[in-house]
């Protein structure tokens, strides 16, 4: 539709004779790209001229060099692969368990009362702090990290799923009952689609929490992983490598979030305008 077109963003400092308002106007994403480029240039200048000491701050070009040399040596790939496996395993388990638990407590008053104190309590608890304990239990390999990711992600998903089912509009339920819907049909044709935006929001929230979980759990003790890379870089004051690891984490977070937004547009178009 015509009104879907986003308005152009006028730039506050520049003027030009080409547009009616005399202002230079760009698409929103173009302004965003310029913002990032300006930020990187600022960072570069700052680290070249103000804090010209790579023990404290690495410049973007130094980070890029570190990324190249780490990937050429194959070291980077090993770290990334380990962290990715930990994240994906933990996230997948948390997604399945979280949605299932959310649906269970939303439909059963008994299980809601039974599980709610644990869910609320553990959601608010910084369970990453249990990382060292999990290493004692499960060893220094990936499973202690997977468990941290599961614990950080699962409750966000559960709470959102339950809230989604619970917030199903009574108007829709009554309308469907009026047309003779069975409880099963009410659940499948009303509650579940109505809760989908909430479930997706919970899963999206889980991406950031899961990434934090992987890094922090690896910092507590690990042989490989981006958290491990960050830890050893910090110990040896190798700022370029530290920033390289952080940059990869940031990039994967951004990538997964935008992939999720695309998924939302496809799965729940009615929540978008």
């Amino acid at each position, binding site marked *: 539709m015509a009104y879907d077109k986003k308005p152009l963003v006028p730039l506050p400092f520049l003027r030009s004779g080409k547009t009616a308002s005399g202002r230079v106007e760009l698409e929103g994403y173009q302004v965003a790209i310029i913002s990032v480029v300006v930020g990187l240039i600022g960072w570069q200048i700052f680290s070249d001229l103000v804090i010209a000491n790579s023990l404290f701050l690495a410049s973007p070009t130094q980070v890029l060099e570190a990324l190249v040399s780490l990937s050429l040596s194959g070291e980077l790939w090993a770290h990334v692969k380990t962290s990715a496996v930990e994240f994906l395993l933990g996230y997948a388990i948390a997604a399945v368990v979280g949605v299932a638990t959310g649906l269970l407590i939303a439909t059963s008053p008994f299980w809601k009362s039974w599980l709610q104190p644990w869910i609320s309590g553990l959601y608010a608890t910084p369970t990453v702090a249990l990382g060292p304990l999990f290493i004692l239990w499960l060893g220094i390999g990936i499973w202690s990290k997977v468990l941290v990711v599961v614990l950080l992600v699962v409750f966000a998903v559960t709470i959102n799923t339950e809230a989604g089912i619970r917030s199903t509009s009574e*108007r*829709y339920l*009554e*309308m*469907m*009952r*009026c*047309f*003779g*819907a*069975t409880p099963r*049909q009410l659940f499948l*044709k*009303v509650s579940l*689609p*109505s809760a*989908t935006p909430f479930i997706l929001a919970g899963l999206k929230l889980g991406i950031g929490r899961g990434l934090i979980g992987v890094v922090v759990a690896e910092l507590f003790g690990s042989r490989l992983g981006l958290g491990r890379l960050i830890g050893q870089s910090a110990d040896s004051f190798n700022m370029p490598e530290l920033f390289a690891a952080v940059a990869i984490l940031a990039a994967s977070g951004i990538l997964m979030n935008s992939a999720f937004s695309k998924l939302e547009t496809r799965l*729940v*178009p*009615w929540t978008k*305008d």
Partner: protein
Amino acid sequence: MTADKLEARALTKHFGDLEVLHEVSANIREGEFVALVGPSGCGKTTFLRIVAGLETADGGAVEVDGRAISGPGRDRGFVFQSDSLLPWRNIFDNTIVGLELAGRISAEDLARTRKLLDLVGLKGFENYFPRQLSGGMRQRVNLARALAIDPELLLMDEPFSALDAQTREIMQVELQRIWEEGRKTVLFVTHQIDEAVFLSDRVLVFARRPGRILEEVEIDLPRPRTIATKRDPKFVTLVDHIWKLIEHDVRESVLFEHH
């Protein structure tokens, strides 16, 4: 078996200490269009919801075609005050939802639903989503959805109350046109007296505290009625008569109650 489509006998309903309905009886003939009017809180909507099976009466009985009702059923189609269209379904899938709940959808069902959307003036909007439609169009879908299950009885709960005045007038004429096509038995709740008179063969005037039928008013205006009918002296006299019946109750409900 009675000749009446709907028979309600001595329906009584309490909400707590409040007697919402006091022994309300009404008979609706096959193919008749009956409106229920009254001030807010007179129990007209509760009466309709009991007939729909969405509420149970404390006393009395409701029969459709001589069979006692015991809950919602597909012999009655309900048109809701708020359209309650499912936002994740397109217009076609919203319209066919009642048939879908009943079981497998036949090719005949599909064709029928298409024809109904055509009848309510929404041909070409099958693949639109509710949020893309205006309030008047959404109420047309609401109506088509109720008609899709081919009910014995069409129950309408103030379906035009959320629409602006002009759209409402158009929808009244439209509803009459659609009704003429199939001559369903209709029970139509409204607080607008002119709307009730314009659409109905008979108006049941409700009073409040306790909710009861004050008077039945036969509307013998010729059909089809048009916007011009509303200026007919006979129309004006009927509206005036009903207004005088409920005026006291309306004042009371407006002045002494703040919902």
